[in-house]
């Protein structure tokens, strides 16, 4: 049996590991354009600052491919021949035949509506891939940390295409002979916040350009966003809200600023972080894709093509609320990868998405979300509280007809499993506020949650 997996990330690697556990003798091939080793993409920001090395971000030891007999191909997949059951590769490489195929090729940066052509201006890039990281490190620090870059960083260049998201971007700092001083980050999502944070960690005062009235409206309310923006401003970040981007300025092939509806912002390095989309154009019509570009899969993670499955960021699955769209999260990629392994081995499987939850850290502010927040449902009400004491935190409880449906919590750590249990138990807003400390996951000696009476 020839198993081929396109993608070396959380979904692809977890699938490969689980198939190998049951079938020591099956041939397993992992095709990856980006990297020799499975790594945690969510850790790019720490590599940039120097907090982690590349090896630190790899959950498995580097000999895993040799030890578990995974064949590894460092090349760009350019298409599928679903009739002959072959994966086509760039660079004139021999197509890879498969009996069963898992497409787990993840996301790529969202195409930029206000600008095109990376060749035109140096100093413009994203913060999604290893290659983006290498570019952004060169702009801000002059190169990787003392721990070095990833091994065989350029191995894919012999087998890639011009439009690949894994191309290295032209570095303005090299052409200019000076590191970036004014970084501008476009886009107020999590990647944008990370790009801002690493620039700040390098001693810069980045511009943070956001189209909306407040940043990350998908996850935060205006009050919460303002609360965090105040912390960012304390750190010297220049937050520009309601700035519509119209284009980029440049001179002599180097970026010099960002054109907005409210005037120009000077910049010698621009990170475009307006989101990610499924990395699937290369598939063409080989499998059915939805309007987001996600590969449509059924509950068994089967695509429209025989013997082809999809998992992770690139797969469009059915959400708990019935909508079909990709879920671009680490833990869903891992879970889908493990389920895809069963599907590849012929098991009947059903992917069932539970309640939504997520967490992150925005600068030094802990964030936990659980349930339905930001869905703006009919009859939805919210209770918002701010804790002002030894610890500063905010609490937003979303409820509907007397029952809690979601939580958005900043400044403390919470166990989301408890929050989700309360949602399933249909608790009232008053009850959860009274018991909220029971969901605490704060470290030891952190003062207990105290909400002033009448603070609502």
């Amino acid at each position, binding site marked *: 049996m020839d198993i081929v997996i396109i993608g070396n990330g*959380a979904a692809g690697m977890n699938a490969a*590991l689980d198939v190998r*556990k049951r079938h020591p003798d099956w041939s397993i091939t992992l095709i990856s354009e980006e990297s020799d080793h499975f790594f*945690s993409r*969510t*850790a790019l*920001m*720490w590599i940039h*600052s*120097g*907090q*982690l*090395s590349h090896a*630190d*971000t*790899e*959950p*498995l*030891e580097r000999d*895993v491919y040799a*030890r*578990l007999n995974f064949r590894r191909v460092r090349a760009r997949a350019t298409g599928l021949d679903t009739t002959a059951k072959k994966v086509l590769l760039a660079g004139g490489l021999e197509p890879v035949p498969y009996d069963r195929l898992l497409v787990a090729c993840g996301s790529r940066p969202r195409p930029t509506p206000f600008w095109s052509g990376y060749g035109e201006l140096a100093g413009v890039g994203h913060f999604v891939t290893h290659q983006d990281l290498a570019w952004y490190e060169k702009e801000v*620090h002059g190169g990787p*940390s*003392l*721990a070095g870059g990833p091994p065989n960083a350029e191995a894919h260049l012999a087998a890639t295409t011009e439009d690949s998201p894994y191309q290295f971007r032209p570095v303005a700092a090299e052409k200019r002979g000076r590191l970036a001083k004014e970084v501008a980050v476009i886009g107020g999502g999590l990647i944008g916040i990370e790009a801002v*944070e*690493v620039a700040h*960690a390098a001693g810069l005062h980045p511009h943070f350009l956001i189209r909306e009235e407040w940043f990350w409206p998908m996850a935060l309310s205006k009050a919460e966003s303002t609360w965090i923006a105040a912390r960012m401003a304390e750190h010297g970040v220049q937050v520009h809200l309601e700035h519509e981007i119209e284009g980029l300025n440049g001179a002599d092939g180097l970026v010099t600023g960002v054109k907005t509806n409210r005037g120009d912002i000077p910049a010698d390095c621009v990170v475009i972080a307006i989101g990610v989309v499924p990395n699937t154009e290369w598939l063409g019509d080989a499998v059915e894709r939805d309007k987001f570009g996600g590969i449509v899969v059924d509950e068994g993670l089967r695509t429209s093509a025989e013997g082809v499955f999809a998992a992770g960021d690139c797969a469009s699955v059915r959400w708990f609320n019935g909508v079909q769209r990709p879920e671009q999260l*680490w*833990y869903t990629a*891992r*879970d889908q990868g493990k389920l895809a392994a069963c599907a590849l081995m012929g098991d009947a499987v059903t992917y069932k998405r539970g309640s939504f*939850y997520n*967490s*992150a*850290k925005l*600068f*030094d*502010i*802990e964030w*936990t979300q659980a349930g339905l927040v930001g869905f703006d449902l009919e009859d939805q009400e919210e209770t918002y509280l701010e804790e002002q004491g*030894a*610890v*500063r935190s905010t609490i937003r409880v979303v409820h509907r007809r007397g029952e809690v449906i979601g939580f958005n919590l900043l*400044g403390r*750590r*919470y*166990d*989301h*499993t408890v929050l989700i249990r309360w949602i399933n138990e249909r608790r009232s807003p008053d009850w959860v506020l009274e018991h909220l400390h029971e969901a605490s*996951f*704060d*470290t*030891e*000696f*952190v*003062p207990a949650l105290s909400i002033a009476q009448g603070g609502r």
Partner: protein
Amino acid sequence: MYAQGQDGLMNTYRSPWRNRTPRTYALSATIIGFYCLLYFTDVLEPVAQAVKLQNKWYLYGALYCVFMTIGGIYMLRTHGNSRYHKLRITVNILVQIVLGFTLPFVMPFFGGKEFYWSYFWPLKYDYFFPDTLWGLPWYMALYTLLGSLVLTPVLALAFGKRWYCSWVCGCGALANTFGDPWRHMTSSSTASWRFEKYSIHAVLLFILGLTGIMLVDGFGGKQIGWFHELAGQTKWVYGFFVGSVLSGVIGTGVYPVLGPRIWCRNFCPMAAILGITQKAGRFRIAVKPDMCISCGNCTTYCEMGIDVRAYAQQNESFTRASCVGCGMCAHVCPRGVLKLENGALELNTDKAASGQLSIDF
């Protein structure tokens, strides 16, 4: 204001003082040289007298406190927004200055005997040797017996080995202050874990054997000439290789290139006993399920080389014998996935002792 979580990004791998560079190798060589001079020569005696200290060991004690305090300030500046670290490092420094330096220093002046209240058998191994015990005032002898045989295991059952290794012990205190800049140098490879398993238990067996021999020697074995000679030689071998070379010269000397807990992780017999006790106790690292993003901060900054991430990825709360409960994994976790806690009393079974459990099959 924020009482947990790393405040700001670290630039660890961008600092030439915190990577394997010529200057950290030179620093390592300097520390090794210092310990060789201290242990095996008397060149530090005149230095001690010049600064009006009784002997080189008091000079060493004073330097120990100075480096610990400087390192403690560095540590708290780097990670100090956590209450756990603030309390822990403060206690560490106070214990060392008061119990490890001042008290032993002043006690002889009041007619007492030099005695280290913060050390127990088997780390302070000679405290159990009859010759030492008989020479102590009764309350010190009682303290050392109760401290080693009752207090240590009871506290380890209740709070894990951290009560000692991360709050009281001088070796641990130096590692977590002066050694903190290099905690990421600790290897988390499977090979390093295999080595640790054998090395630490070999030293434990050695000290158990030596203590047995010394007890026999003290209770009459002395009369037999060859036995007494054997006891003396065994004691010298342990004192030289374990007491001096492994705990001092190597243990501290390799901080800048192999991480600060080489002694604690691989050789300390006290840590071995505490670790076994901890496995049966309440302490554990709780894992919040399905929130880990595999970034690797916990594993990287674990000074004991535990692959914390592997447990977090498996949604598995765990107790590892080697964990000293320094709290750094929970501190650096960007998703608040980890939490040190003294849970309900239950026997912990270690399903995945290997450093790389997700591929351990």
